C-alpha cells in the first residue's frame, strides 16, 4: 500500500517543486546526476576489479581489525558503502565469510564512507569542479565504448566521477540561486526538537535517494550556501547515517538468513551511533571545535567541521561497538534463527550470491556437493545399503555379503523430489550467472555443470542396476549373488572414498584428485577380471546365459557410474586458490593414459 502511494507522491512533490521553482529543479537535477554517477562508479568498479576484491575479502575473515581495515579502505577507494555491503552480503550468503567478519567490514565501511564528506568539503565546494567534470565525462564515455573490459571499467569509473562532479556543481548552483528567493535557514528549529526533526529529514532523504553520500553532499552544498544552520546540518548527517542502512536492508531481502543478520547488524550499528551522537551532541560539537582548532580549520568553516563531525561520530560508534561484536553476532543468531533446512531445496544459491564471480563459483561448488549428498543417499538405498553402513563399516565387503535386507524405495519418486529440484536450480543458476560472468570463469562453470549432470546420470544408472541387484543379492545361487555383491561393493566403495577425500583439507584434495586415478585404474582391472570370471562360471554352468547377460549389462551401469562419480569428484576437489591442486590437476591422467598405465 505504502509503496503504491510513495512513488506518485514523490513524483507529485517533485513536479510541484519544478513548477514553482526553477532553482529547485536545478538542485534535483544535480542530485539525479550525482546518483547516476554513483551507478556508473559501482558498475565500473565491479568490472574493473575482476576477482581482486573478492579475493581480498576472503582474506579478511580471520581478524576483526582486518575486516575493519578492509571496510575502511575499500569504501574509501570506491566511495560506496552500499557496494561493499552488497559484496559482503553475497559472501555471507554463500557461506564464505563469517557473520563476525562481515560485521567488521560494515563497521569499517561506515568510517570509509566519511572520507566522501572530506573530499566534497575540502575540494568539491572550493574548486570549480565542473571544469574537471566535462573532460572526465568525455574520456570516460569514449573508454566505456571500448571492447576491453578493463578499459570499459576504467571508462565507467571516470564517467562516474565526472557525473558526481557535475551533480555537485548543479546542487551548488541551485542552492546559490535558491537562497535569493527562499531562505530555508528561516525554518531552522533550535534544541532537541530541531535535532530530531532534521535527523528524521536526513533519514527520509537517504531512504528516497538510496545514498547517504548524495544526502551528505546535499547537506554540505546547502550548508555552504547558508541555506541550513550548522546545528541542523549535524542532525541531517546523523539521519543520513541511519537512513543508509535501508539500502543494506533492501539488499538483504533476497539474501539468506546470514545476509539478513548482517543487515540487522548494520541497522543496529547506525542506530546506536545515531543515538550516541544525538545524546552527546554538545560534547561532539565541543570536540569538533577542539579538533578543528588544532588542525587549523577556521571557526566559520562549517562544511569542513561537518566532515570532522561525520568522521568523529562514526569513529566513536566503532570504538563503542567493536568490543560488542561477538555479542552482537550472538544476538542476531537468536533474532534470526536458522530455519530447519529443507535438504531437497538449494542451500547456497541465493540471488545475492550471483553478484560476484568468485561467490558464484564457491556457492555453486557447495551446491553441487549438496546434490552429491542427496544422490549418495538414493544410490546407497538403491543398492540396498544404509548411508551409515557405507561410511562406517570397517569391512565393507563383509557387510555387503552378510546384509540381505531389501530397502523399500521408489527411485523415480525420490529422484523427482530430491535430485531434480536441486539439479534444475543449479542449471538455472548457472545460466543466469553465466550471462554476467567474465569468460575466464566459463571453463570452471562448464566443469561444475558437467559434474551435476554426471551425478544425475549416476542416480539413473543405479535405478537400472537396482532391479537385478535386489533380485540376485538374495539368490540361492552363490556365484551370481557374489558377483552382484561385488558390483554393490564397487559403487559403495567409490562413494565412501569420495566422501573421505572431501573431508580433507585443500592440500589433501590435491593428492586426493590423483588418488582417484588409481581407483579408475582399479575399475578397469575389475572389468577385465569380471569378463574372465563370467566366462568361467558360465562355461561351468554355474550361472545361466540370462544371468551372464544381466551381469554384463549391469556391470556397464556400474562402470559408467564409477567413472562419472570419480570425474565429478575430481572436478569438485580442485581449489582455485590452491597451487598444489592446480598442479595436481595438470598431472591427473586422462582415460587413455589410465588404460595404458593399468594394462597388464
Amino acid at each position, binding site marked *: 500500500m505504502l509503496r503504491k502511494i510513495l512513488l506518485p507522491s514523490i513524483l507529485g512533490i517533485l513536479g510541484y517543486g519544478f513548477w514553482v521553482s526553477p532553482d529547485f529543479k536545478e538542485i534535483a537535477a544535480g542530485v539525479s546526476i550525482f546518483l547516476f554517477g554513483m551507478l556508473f562508479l559501482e558498475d565500473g568498479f565491479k568490472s574493473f576489479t575482476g576477482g581482486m576484491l573478492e579475493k581480498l575479502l576472503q582474506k579478511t575473515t580471520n581478524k576483526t581489525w582486518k575486516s575493519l581495515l578492509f571496510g575502511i579502505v575499500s569504501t574509501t577507494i570506491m566511495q560506496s558503502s552500499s557496494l561493499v555491503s552488497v559484496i559482503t552480503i553475497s559472501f555471507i550468503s554463500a557461506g564464505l565469510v563469517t557473520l563476525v567478519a562481515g560485521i567488521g567490514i560494515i563497521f569499517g565501511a561506515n568510517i570509509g564512507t566519511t572520507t566522501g564528506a572530506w573530499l566534497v568539503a575540502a575540494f568539491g565546494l572550493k574548486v570549480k569542479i565542473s571544469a574537471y567534470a566535462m573532460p572526465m565525462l568525455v574520456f570516460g564515455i569514449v573508454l566505456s565504448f571500448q571492447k*576491453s573490459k578493463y578499459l570499459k571499467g576504467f571508462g565507467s569509473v571516470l564517467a562516474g566521477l565526472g557525473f558526481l562532479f557535475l551533480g555537485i556543481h548543479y546542487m551548488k548552483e541551485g542552492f546559490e540561486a535558491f537562497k535569493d528567493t527562499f531562505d530555508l535557514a528561516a525554518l531552522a528549529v533550535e534544541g532537541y526538537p530541531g535535532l530530531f526533526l532534521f535527523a528524521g529529514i536526513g533519514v527520509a532523504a537517504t531512504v528516497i535517494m538510496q545514498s547517504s553520500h548524495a544526502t551528505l553532499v546535499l547537506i554540505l552544498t546547502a550548508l555552504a550556501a547558508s541555506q541550513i544552520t550548522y546545528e541542523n546540518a549535524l542532525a541531517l548527517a546523523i539521519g543520513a547515517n541511519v537512513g543508509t542502512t535501508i539500502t543494506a536492508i533492501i539488499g538483504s531481502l533476497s539474501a539468506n538468513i546470514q545476509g539478513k543478520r548482517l543487515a540487522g547488524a548494520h541497522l543496529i550499528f547506525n542506530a546506536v551511533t545515531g543515538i550516541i551522537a544525538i545524546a552527546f551532541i554538545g560534547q561532539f560539537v565541543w570536540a569538533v571545535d577542539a579538533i578543528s582548532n588544532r588542525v587549523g580549520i577556521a571557526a566559520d568553516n562549517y562544511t569542513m567541521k561537518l566532515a570532522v563531525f561525520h568522521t568523529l561520530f562514526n569513529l566513536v560508534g566503532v570504538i563503542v561497538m567493536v568490543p560488542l561484536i561477538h555479542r552482537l553476532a550472538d544476538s542476531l543468531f537468536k533474532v534470526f534463527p536458522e530455519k530447519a533446512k529443507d535438504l531437497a531445496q538449494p542451500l547456497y544459491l541465493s540471488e545475492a550470491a550471483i553478484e560476484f564471480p568468485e561467490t558464484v563459483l564457491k556457492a555453486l561448488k557447495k551446491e553441487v556437493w549438496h546434490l552429491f549428498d542427496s544422490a549418495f543417499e538414493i544410490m546407497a538405498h538403491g543398492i540396498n545399503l544404509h548411508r551409515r553402513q557405507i561410511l562406517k563399516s570397517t569391512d565393507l565387503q563383509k557387510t555387503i555379503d552378510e546384509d540381505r535386507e531389501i530397502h523399500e524405495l521408489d527411485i523415480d519418486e525420490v529422484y523427482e523430489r530430491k535430485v531434480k529440484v536441486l539439479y534444475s536450480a543449479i542449471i538455472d543458476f548457472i545460466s543466469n550467472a553465466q550471462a554476467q560472468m567474465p569468460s*575466464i570463469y566459463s571453463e570452471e562453470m562448464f566443469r561444475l555443470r558437467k559434474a551435476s549432470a554426471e551425478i544425475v546420470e549416476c542416480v539413473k544408472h543405479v535405478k537400472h542396476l537396482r532391479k537385478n541387484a535386489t533380485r540376485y543379492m538374495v539368490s540361492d545361487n552363490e556365484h551370481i549373488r557374489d558377483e552382484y555383491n561385488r558390483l554393490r561393493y564397487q559403487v559403495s566403495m567409490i562413494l565412501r572414498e569420495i566422501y573421505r577425500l572431501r573431508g580433507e583439507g585443500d592440500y589433501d584434495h590435491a593428492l586426493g584428485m590423483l588418488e582417484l586415478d*588409481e581407483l579408475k585404474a582399479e575399475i578397469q582391472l575389475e572389468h577385465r577380471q569380471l569378463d574372465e570370471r563370467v566366462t568361467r562360471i558360465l562355461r561351468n554352468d554355474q550361472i545361466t546365459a540370462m544371468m551372464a547377460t544381466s551381469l554384463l549389462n549391469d556391470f556397464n551401469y556400474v562402470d559408467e557410474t564409477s567413472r562419472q562419480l570419480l570425474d565429478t569428484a575430481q572436478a569438485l576437489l580442485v581449489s582455485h586458490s590452491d*597451487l598444489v591442486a*592446480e*598442479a595436481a590437476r595438470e598431472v591427473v591422467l586422462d582415460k587413455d593414459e589410465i588404460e595404458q598405465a593399468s594394462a597388464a
Partner: protein
Amino acid sequence: MKFSRLIDKVEKIADKYQQGDQVDSQKLTELQSLLGDKIARYQARLEEDMSEQKRDKLETRLKVVRAQLQKSQDLKKSS
C-alpha cells in the same frame, strides 16, 4: 609504444593475475616428491604377503602413480 599494444600488454598482465601462473614449477616438485614417497610405500607393501587379488590391485595402483610421476616430470621439462 602503440596504444593498441599498450592495451594488449595491460590485458595480458590482468589475465595473468586472474589465472595465476600456468603450472607452478615449485609445486610440481613438491608433488613429485609426494608421488615418489607413495611409490616407495606401494613397493614396500608389495613385499608383504597378500592375496593375488589384492596384489593385482596394488600393482595397478603402482603403475598409475608411476605414470603420474612421469607426466609431472614431462610437464616440468616443458614449462
